[in-house]
């Protein structure tokens, strides 16, 4: 049989993307389409005293202006409903909870006219002092997330005092680490087109990581049956967690389109996106570690403070990864949360693990220095065989191999231990490393396979490809199972009429979907009474049937409940620092990752590279600030919200190690995506310490912090 899985295949959707043929949500042209432009709050706390839409309504081309006084019909979702980023419905009332909150929607026959008229809507506010400063906020115990409580304690902390657990420790470290607000800033902005074909059915062209979820949410909020909503989302120009559920602008667009009885497009501007389509909360974390002389951890205490919004209670789950990484008899985890006048924080590439591991992996580095033990060695000595909260053994864990292979590929043994000891001309050179880890998630999914007389196979499922390479791995899975070349497999994704392919979130798409594709392929061959597709095509022609088709689903097995599943990795990097002028560059990068079986070495490596780049952005430059007086973000576009340019990024070497994880699923694959960003910022900061002797515990490491 042809060997396709594990080879390097260019993405199937590459050509249509680079030629512009791929049609993204807001690019759908529908006759009679009109444009909506959002009016957003310029204060961060208070209420609308008066809103004057007269001038806007009188402007040429204006079709409608919606405010809280004429909210288009939106239904309250049922109890326990979670398919929304903001709990508050758009235009629900006159209250303002954060700057950038939607207070109106102006609809006109052109975008320019809509934008112009939106600028003419005059809102008078009753303003109250907003709170946007994390340092000044009041914190309380964080709520649980996905049923997991953040409070956790094991071992001896009887008096609530860390010193008990660590009394006879050889080394102790305690430090506080902070990270700033980051915004997702995907290349494709948040944008959609809503088209009502009749009173009970609407098609929504919108980038969404979860078409079936969006379908349900819209149906519920619009008061129509689920089948009445069709979501079309074949391409997504980046999401990173910010396109999993409908945002208020989407709900408003679909509801307003029903009211005006025309296809309506709403595009959120870059400026607006800094405030109302999600961000990662700032974090403040205190790590206390205690260890024996040999480096064995005696105690870990990890406390985190994060912030949320009046319109959503979302704790950034920083402490979740700590019990996964290092073994210790005494562990205490705690999280607190404060409400600020900001938009809803949400999932952003490795929510929790990412900032959590900045703290943990920086602290481990500090401990290594304290003990005078190599940081790679310190991690190896503390590896845990089981998940310390779930009390389950890890399946197919190759963490140590990641560390060792990474050290070897990087040339870690050449490292001169002392900070400030490596030089390259006048530049200080630093080497740093950090572990990488992310849980392996899997849900159930369904896929359909059709074999057609023209010798092609079609795979159909509602799952989507948000730039990750899903089209390609689905095609590869089908091609290998059916005995066809990849080019003969056509993949259709991102449409809610297709079988439920699950959600592209939590890096679970490949692990969730490919087993279903495998099962559907096997089933269609059975139906065709054939060993492979060429045989099936012969049978098909003989039988005169139009097609063979089969649908199959796949879900986590009972057997899999005996294990904890996680992906692993290690990052090694080099930085140079021109100390006098505070100029820092990342000059070398090696990542070694264990994700079970690698389906497509090319797109898998791309996932890691993209994540490392995003992590370098977090380490060095990304931060969204809010004006302390008005609560309005002072970052307004992609020139003011810095993320890495090419010049900031060195060659990134990516290696995979390990074996197929068949305990997890029949394909042996775990997800690859978010794992790549975890540990990146710590690796950079650890390298900066090695270069300069300066420990920078607050991200991003901008020039001012290096002076």
């Amino acid at each position, binding site marked *: 049989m042809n060997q396709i899985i594990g080879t390097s295949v260019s993405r199937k959707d590459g050509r249509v993307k680079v030629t512009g043929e791929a049609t993204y949500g807001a690019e759908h042209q529908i006759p009679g389409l009109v444009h909506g432009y959002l009016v957003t709050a310029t204060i961060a706390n208070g209420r609308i005293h008066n809103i004057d839409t007269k001038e806007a309504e009188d402007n040429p081309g204006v079709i409608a202006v919606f405010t809280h006084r004429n909210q288009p019909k939106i239904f309250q979702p049922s109890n326990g409903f979670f398919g929304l980023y903001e709990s508050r419905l758009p235009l629900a009332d006159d209250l303002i909870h954060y700057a950038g909150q939607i207070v109106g929607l102006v609809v006109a026959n052109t975008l320019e006219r809509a934008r112009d008229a939106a600028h003419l809507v005059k809102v008078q506010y009753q303003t109250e002092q907003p709170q946007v400063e994390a340092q000044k906020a009041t914190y309380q115990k964080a709520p649980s997330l996905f049923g997991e409580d953040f409070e956790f304690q094991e071992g001896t902390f009887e008096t609530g005092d860390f010193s008990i657990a660590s009394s006879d420790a050889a080394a102790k470290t305690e430090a506080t680490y902070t990270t700033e607000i980051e915004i997702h800033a995907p290349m494709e902005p948040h944008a959609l087109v809503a088209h009502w074909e009749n009173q009970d059915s609407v098609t929504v062209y919108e980038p969404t990581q979860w078409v079936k979820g969006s379908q349900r949410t819209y149906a519920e909020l619009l008061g129509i049956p689920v089948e009445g909503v069709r979501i079309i989302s074949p391409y997504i120009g980046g999401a990173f967690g910010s396109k999993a559920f409908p945002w208020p602008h989407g709900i408003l667009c679909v509801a307003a389109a029903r009211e005006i009885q025309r296809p309506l497009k709403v595009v959120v501007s870059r400026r607006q996106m800094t405030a109302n389509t999600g961000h990662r909360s700032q974090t403040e974390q205190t790590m206390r570690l205690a260890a024996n002389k040999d480096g064995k951890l005696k105690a870990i205490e990890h406390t985190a403070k994060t912030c949320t919004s009046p319109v959503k209670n979302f704790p950034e789950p920083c402490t979740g990864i700590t019990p996964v990484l290092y073994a210790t008899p005494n562990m205490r985890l705690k999280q607190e949360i404060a409400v600020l006048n900001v938009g809803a924080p949400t999932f952003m590439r490795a929510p929790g693990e990412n900032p959590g591991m900045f703290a943990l992996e920086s602290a481990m580095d500090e401990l290594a220095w304290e003990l005078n033990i190599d940081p790679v060695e310190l991690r190896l000595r503390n590896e845990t065989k089981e998940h310390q909260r779930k009390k389950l053994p890890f399946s197919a864990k190759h963490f140590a191999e990641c560390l060792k292979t990474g050290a070897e590929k990087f040339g870690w043994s050449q490292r001169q231990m002392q900070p400030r000891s490596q030089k390259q001309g006048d530049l200080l050179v630093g080497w740093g490393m950090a572990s990488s880890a992310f849980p392996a998630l899997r849900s159930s999914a369904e896929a359909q396979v059709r074999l057609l007389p023209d010798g092609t196979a079609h795979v159909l499922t509602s799952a989507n490809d948000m730039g990750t390479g899903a089209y390609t791995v689905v095609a590869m899975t089908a091609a290998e199972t059916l005995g066809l070349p990849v080019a003969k497999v056509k993949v259709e994704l991102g449409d809610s009429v297709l079988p439920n392919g699950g959600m592209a979130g939590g890096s679970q798409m490949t692990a969730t979907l490919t087993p279903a594709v495998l099962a559907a392929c096997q089933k269609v061959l059975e139906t065709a009474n054939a060993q492979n597709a060429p045989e099936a095509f012969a049978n098909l022609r003989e039988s005169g049937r139009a097609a063979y088709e089969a649908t199959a689903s796949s879900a986590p097995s009972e057997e899999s409940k005996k294990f904890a599943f996680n992906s692993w990795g290690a990052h090694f990097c080099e930085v140079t620092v021109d100390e*006098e002028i505070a100029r820092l*560059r990342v000059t070398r990068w090696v990542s070694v990752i264990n994700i079970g079986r690698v389906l497509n070495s090319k797109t898998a490596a791309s996932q890691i590279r993209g994540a490392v780049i995003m992590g370098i952005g977090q380490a*060095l430059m990304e931060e969204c600030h809010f*004006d302390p007086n*008005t609560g309005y973000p*002072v970052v307004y576009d992609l020139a003011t919200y810095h993320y890495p*340019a090419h*010049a900031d990024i060195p060659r990134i070497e990516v290696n995979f190690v390990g074996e197929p994880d068949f305990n997890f699923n029949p394909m042996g694959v775990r997800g690859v995506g978010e794992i790549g960003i975890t540990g990146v910022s710590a690796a950079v900061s650890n390298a900066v310490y090695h270069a300069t002797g300066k420990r920078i515990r607050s991200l991003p490491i901008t020039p*001012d912090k290096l*002076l």
Partner: protein
Amino acid sequence: MKNFAYVRPNSVEDAVSRATSDRDALFIAGGTNLVDRLKVFLDEPSQLLDVSRLAMKQIATTNEGGLKIGALVTNTALANNIDVRNNYPLLSRAILAGASQQIRNMATVGGNLMQRTRCPYYYDTAFPCNKRQPDTGCPAATGINRIHAILGSSDRCVAVNPSDMSVAMVALDATLEVQGVEGKREIPFVDFHRLPGNTPERDTNLEPGELITAVILPPVSFAQSGVYLKLRDRASYAFALVSVATALEVSGEQIKNARIALGGVAHKPWRATEAEEFLIGKAANKSNFEQAAEIALKDAQALAHNGFKIELSKRAIRRALAVSAQGGGEA
């Protein structure tokens, strides 16, 4: 946004006369700054006078041995011009340190010198701003002011000029040639941009209706020693936190001539004349460079978040001078 007329004047005179008779008209050249501003309602012109097709695209050698650069020469063309690269390497480097290749392909000399501040409070009409609307206040002074001015600001405005090219021009003692209805006049580059004082709405001393037609560079015998050092939050495609242009003429042990200009620190490209004077006659060594840096920043004042720029500027000056003393190049 009001509707506006789009007009292509057929000559410099035509452009100037239209702009003079209509105070709400605006010139547009490459459009890379103005179009962005129009979209967010920072400018609401009555008409756009598209000057981009006028004949101001030459780079010519002057009788004195300098260069006369037409106002419509693109940033890319100027940076890559062989005379500029050979005789004014610091100008070429300053331009290439700015924006992106795509933007530089469109951007013109005149437009670059006239680009407006990137102060986020200026950039969003949700905020009051004395520069945008006189007498409404300056929220940047008490807000997030990490990128704001440390020199020459007023209580009405703490914005900085974002142009890299201007820093090089001011260091090279350039002169602007401008045309009004009354005819041409010349403005020394140092006097072109203004400090905010009580009128932050005015960036420059260009009179209403006047069009920049050219920039004239005098010959600078020691321009080879030119350095442009730009320090910023990412390696490329970011405005300067601090930038420094330097050049030195050193003969034997002694400094004969010195140029120091700073960007990203004030409402105008900042020429550090006193520091230059200090250096003349002194040895080109570290301690003199340190003192020059101290002198250049002696009047600097920090706001809540930009104090680091004072130290960063000093270090950048020291470094740039050291490289200039070695004969110039990348710093």
